[in-house]
């Protein structure tokens, strides 16, 4: 398999003869992705958000934990662009800071769960038989297992901590990805080109990764891009049971939940974190569509 890598990596450097006979799928993908303007814009937005989150200590106008009991629950104003919360903290600054936690938890947990789930689903669908049954029954239990219980178990075993939230949320995602990928694998593995690949001697593992996996990716990407939003919210609900970011951490989901009681009285407390989540999810979805399209050979 080293040879494949050699090609894949090497192909990323421009060829000297002007034509590259063997352009790796990866490179081809990037060429097409670059041309999708919406997706690029979404990607740039997310990059900007990431940078803003990283630079939060320098660019946030206020201390995210700095309270001011004389200005609680104030609506948006020139001083506080997104208003203040129940402690008079600046919501805008908190959103900036919160992006650090929420983005990393959202993204990492989904990626982790996605990778594990995709691998399991591929193997289950491809191998079939008892391997399939075993993996899928485990997934059934994981699906049926209530999230809170699992999370409580994780706190009990691993203790609190942001990494553990990532694991917890990742575990929730695993069975979904697994089922999704397994379903597509079941039908893809019967494609004639898979037979053709087998006939040129491609071993099973590579067959799965190179010939079947790409076919399942459209669904996977769609799900990843949606799941990120859900994960941000799930992570927040976990902080409620003592797992993960604890007060006064400005986690988006927690901010949203905290503001729940002020709906109708001081709606901006939920609105802005909600907006942040919405825009992030939107960006991820647009990005996902771009990725999907770039993977689609029939779209130039």
């Amino acid at each position, binding site marked *: 398999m080293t040879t494949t890598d050699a090609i894949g990596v*090497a192909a990323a450097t421009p060829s000297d003869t002007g034509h590259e006979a063997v352009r790796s799928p990866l490179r081809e993908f990037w060429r097409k992705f670059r041309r999708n303007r919406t997706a690029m814009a979404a990607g740039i937005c997310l990059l900007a958000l990431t940078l803003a989150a990283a630079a939060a200590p320098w660019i946030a106008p206020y201390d995210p934990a700095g309270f001011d009991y004389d200005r609680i629950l104030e609506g948006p104003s020139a001083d506080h662009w997104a208003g203040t919360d129940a402690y008079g903290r600046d919501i805008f600054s908190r959103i900036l800071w919160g992006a650090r936690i929420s983005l990393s938890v959202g993204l990492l947990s989904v990626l982790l769960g996605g990778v594990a789930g995709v691998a399991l689903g591929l193997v289950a669908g491809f191998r079939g038989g008892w391997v399939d049954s075993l993996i899928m029954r485990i997934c059934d239990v994981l699906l049926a297992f209530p999230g809170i219980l699992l999370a409580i178990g994780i706190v009990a075993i691993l203790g609190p901590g942001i990494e553990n939230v990532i694991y917890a949320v990742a575990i929730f995602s695993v069975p979904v990805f697994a089922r999704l990928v397994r379903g597509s694998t079941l039908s893809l593995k019967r494609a004639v080109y898979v*037979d053709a690949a087998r006939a040129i001697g491609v071993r099973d593992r590579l067959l799965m990764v190179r010939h079947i996996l790409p076919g399942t990716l459209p669904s996977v990407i769609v799900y990843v891009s949606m799941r990120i939003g859900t994960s941000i919210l799930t992570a927040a609900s976990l902080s409620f049971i003592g797992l993960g970011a604890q007060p006064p951490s400005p986690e988006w989901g927690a901010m949203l939940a905290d503001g729940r009681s002020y709906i109708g009285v001081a709606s901006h407390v939920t609105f802005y974190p909600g907006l942040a989540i919405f825009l992030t999810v939107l960006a991820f979805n647009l990005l996902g569509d771009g990725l999907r399209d770039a993977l689609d050979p*029939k779209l*130039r």
Partner: protein
Amino acid sequence: MSGAVAAKAVDTTRAPLPVPLLSVEGLSVAFDGEHGPVRVVDDISFTVAPGETVAIVGESGSGKSVTSLSLMRLVDYAGGRIVGGSIRFKGRDGRERDLASPPAEALTDMRGNDIAMVFQEPMTSLNPVFTIGDQIAEAVMLHQGLDRKAARAEALRMLEKVRIPEPARLLDRHPHQLSGGMRQRVMIAMALSCRPSLLIADEPTTALDVTIQAQILRLIRLLQDEMGMGVIFITHDMGVVAEVADRVVVMWRGRKVEEGTVERIFQAPQHPYTKALLSAVPKLGALRGQDLPMRFPLLVVDGAKDGAKNDAAPPAPPPVQDTVRAADAPLLEVRDLTTRFDVRKGIFGSLKARVHAVEKVSFAVRPGETLALVGESGCGKSTTGRTIMGLQSATSGSIRFDGVDTATLDSNGQAKLKEKIQYIFQDPFASLNPRMTVGFSVAEPMLVHDYVPTAKPGLSRRRAVEERVAELLTQVGLKPEHARRYPHEFSGGQRQRICIARALACDPKLIIADEAVAALDVSIQAQIVNLLMELQAKRGLSYLFISHDMAVVERVSHRVAVMYLGQIVELGPRRAVFENPQHPYTRRLMAAVPIADPSRRTRDLRLLTGEIASPIRNIGDEPAVQPLVPVGDGHFVARHAVGGDF
């Protein structure tokens, strides 16, 4: 369409009717390429009158299929665009309209009804999730206004007409359970059941053996006479053209280079390409009296640039192919190979019957030898190939390669084996991963087997592989820059050549070529066949050459095996089988080969009817397998009732 048998003698000199059915003028079609739009059809004009058959012939990749797709505006859905010209069509209602201008969606009511089409690639053109019956019945219901039950009955009738065995059972089967030729016939049945006024048939008989091909051609002719249907017939088989066409349009590199009545084209071709084409037509019997295969006379078609005159010097006589190392142990030895499929019904269906696709087949391929496997469509040729490749598990029997029983190999050994045996699938499009550039597909065997191409020194491995891919593509008549395209951006013949290039990548010892040159125009076909034979001469390659094209088989094979209903009924040296066929099926096969001469066309319009022998048998009803008995030197025949009267 009532009487199944219609015997009619028809006036062979049909004058074109004054009012054309279809009139294409200046049609140009473009696709978006890497560097902007690429015109693949450029300024094409021709007309089709009711009842007329216009054949479009031309080089592979010259734009025949794209032209035909444009006529129905289906090219719009494939990412193409009509960039110029008009397509005037006179509908059933007598109204004439330009199909090139309205949005593609607006033409729905016209498709099928007025114009129907048989697609070039039957494998991918049938919907995998619906039964054959449903797919044909849908067309019937749409266009003949029948209810479900009547439509099914009609579908059954159509299937009978295209000579599919046990059509009633077939109605409930799905496309993936059919052989290539069966699918093609289903496509034809579907298109014909629309009863269009214009039929576009894009290589409708590539996957059919000559006997069935003849039947299909008659069927089309019959409908044409009955309903005044115009036909556009795209084919590379000049024999078929001579048989069916009234007029011929010759295309070359996206343009029309010549047009004329079939007699004129055949007798007095003008354009160098047309001349080259006609001179390259393989003729059955060309090697009569020859023991060994022989390459095609080499043609210099490429020299015919843009109409420049080129009457090249007569080519040197091709060398004979004396490559068989008869003394060596057989490379591939198949013994009593049997492969059966279960037939079930419905989602939960219980076992109903079995397809005896391959029954006790035994043969050997020696190093440097080409064994041709011929036989009726659906007789189990592809299944034999797939089983040898391990893509289909055998019911029983043994396969030895290089003396090793492949069943004893672990998965690692299996994978290693694939470096030495390559399989060219009957269905090139489906066998290419749609998500990979063809360059990567061609390179893949090399990557997988760590194959280091011998290349100029100083090249990195990656560059060496790239060079090799470029070289392979060039060898099969494609351009190196095609490597960056995806399979769907190629023509049928081009895809076939990509698959050939892939099979050649690792210098295998044996290539199983399943209808590998079926979709190629004769000039390219000759090149490719010569290439294969050259490689055989150089490297001692062996081929298991599955084909129905008897003229090609004659050229390439040392020995021939004739299959019928899953069994080998005749096996022997090519010359013996061709010149002295023993089995009735073999004889029928030889007799049905069309001849590329319009003056010798047979206007015999009798449709075959009656029971067709089928490989589907009820559980427990095992077919009798007769041993092959020698009738000559290395010439064997099975003497049993299967497939004809002894």
